[in-house]
């Protein structure tokens, strides 16, 4: 039965978390029947599984993930893309063009140039090679407007919420389009910079308070309050001058 920490207690690498019948989950390892933490984070024990919610962890590519990437280099066959991971990703021309790639005719930089932002999906990745991307699905492709913000990848699930409840709420309250990359990059595109600012505020709040409960309500409240103040300001400004 022994677990050595309580839920949501802070643990550090090498801390002994549990023994024997437990299964080790994320950010832990098992040796000689004992389970230890590999990262700084919060201890969680559920049923017979223990894992650690890491305070800080970088993104490791996974096939199927949607990511937001930035083009670093245009090469002969495609684009070298930064996806904020230990590995650079590659978007091949064949995964960006609906038709076969003709090097003489097709001008790659006109599709994506250095510095361009894209929403892409990881189609291949394993230990022997760098991740491969595609933009040939709905919702993927070059990003032409909006703002990008970066948060710790471990907090992305919180931004999404249970069945998309959190991000759905933010979209509703701010009227913004929000695209979430599993690699910790989020694109926010709203009707006005003001709307975008609200959405960014909400996401920053989630990043800061990811480990607390009742977060969805607090974020909703905050957004409503900010909007309320904004419209109050507008009302004051719209009062016709006395003649």
């Amino acid at each position, binding site marked *: 039965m022994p677990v050595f920490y309580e839920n949501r207690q*802070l643990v*550090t*690498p*090498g*801390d*002994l978390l549990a023994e024997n019948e437990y299964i080790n989950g994320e*950010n832990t*390892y098992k040796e000689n029947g004992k389970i*230890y933490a*590999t*990262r*700084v984070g919060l201890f969680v024990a559920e049923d017979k599984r223990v894992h650690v919610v*890491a*305070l*800080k*962890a*970088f993104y*490791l590519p996974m096939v199927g993930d949607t990511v937001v990437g930035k083009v670093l280099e245009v090469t002969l066959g495609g684009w070298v893309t930064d996806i904020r991971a*230990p*590995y*650079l990703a590659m978007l091949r021309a064949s995964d960006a063009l609906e038709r076969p790639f003709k090097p003489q005719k097709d001008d790659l930089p006109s599709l994506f140039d250095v510095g361009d932002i894209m929403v892409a999906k990881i189609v291949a990745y394993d*230990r*022997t090679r760098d991740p491969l991307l595609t933009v040939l699905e709905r919702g993927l492709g070059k990003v032409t407007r909006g703002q990008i913000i970066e948060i710790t990848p471990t907090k992305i699930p919180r931004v999404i919420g249970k069945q998309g409840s959190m991000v759905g709420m933010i979209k509703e309250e701010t009227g913004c389009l929000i695209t979430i990359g599993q690699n910790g990059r989020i694109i926010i595109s709203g009707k006005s910079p003001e709307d975008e600012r609200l959405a960014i505020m909400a996401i920053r709040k989630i990043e*800061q*308070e990811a*480990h*607390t409960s009742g977060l969805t309500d*607090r974020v909703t*409240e*905050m957004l409503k*309050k900010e909007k309320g103040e904004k419209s109050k300001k507008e009302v004051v400004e719209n009062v016709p001058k006395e003649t």
Partner: protein
Amino acid sequence: MSQKKPEKLIDENDIRSDGRKLNEMRQVKIEVGILGNADGSAYIEMGKNRILAAVYGPREIHPRHQALPDRAALRCRYHMAPFSVQERKSPAPSRREHELSKVIRESLEPSIFTEYYPRTAIDLFIEVLQADGGTRCAGITVASLALADAGIPMRDLVSACAAGKVDGRLVLDLNDVEDKGGEADMPLAYMPTMNAVTLLQMDGMLTGEEFEQVLNMALEGCKQINQLQKEALRAKYKVVKEAEAEKEEEGEKEAAE
């Protein structure tokens, strides 16, 4: 200009030249996550030592031929600033810095799950801003924290401390004067969870029995350092947690108004 060697490094009451007892470590102050650009960083003051460590990675490795097919390559640079020592040291890496870069890398490698990130590099930089003996140990201690701060998965923190023999007595954590004027100095790095000695060097002269005693003394020092490292990691998070708790309270207060 050379320093004059003091006549006696330890007096008749077993008090050392800096006022410490034989098995007393110097004052330690640690801060984690102080550099903005690095993926992980930490800073230590141990006595007069001032040492900074930073980690970049795992990241693409350049030059490509240094890539390892089955794990991350840990690269380490231990370097002393020209103004860190009494007589200005040339910025060019000395043979000592070459050797220390190697042994420090070998002391940390066993702690990292390098096999999770093949073909990448984990770059570790240790800069000694001020030196007063025991810099490789303090450097390892702070480098291990920088790795944890970078979110790199590890088996355990690596904790380092030196012990030795000065004026015939066995002492813990030698400063520069004691290292230069003493009979033996043994830096040691240790992973408590795995009971693993990952760095062990000694210069001087010790009988077989003294060797054992000094090593055990250094191990105890490492265990103390391990506690201080964990506290430093917790302290960083506590600040965040307190800020969150404050925000929660504020939120509730405003809701009530």
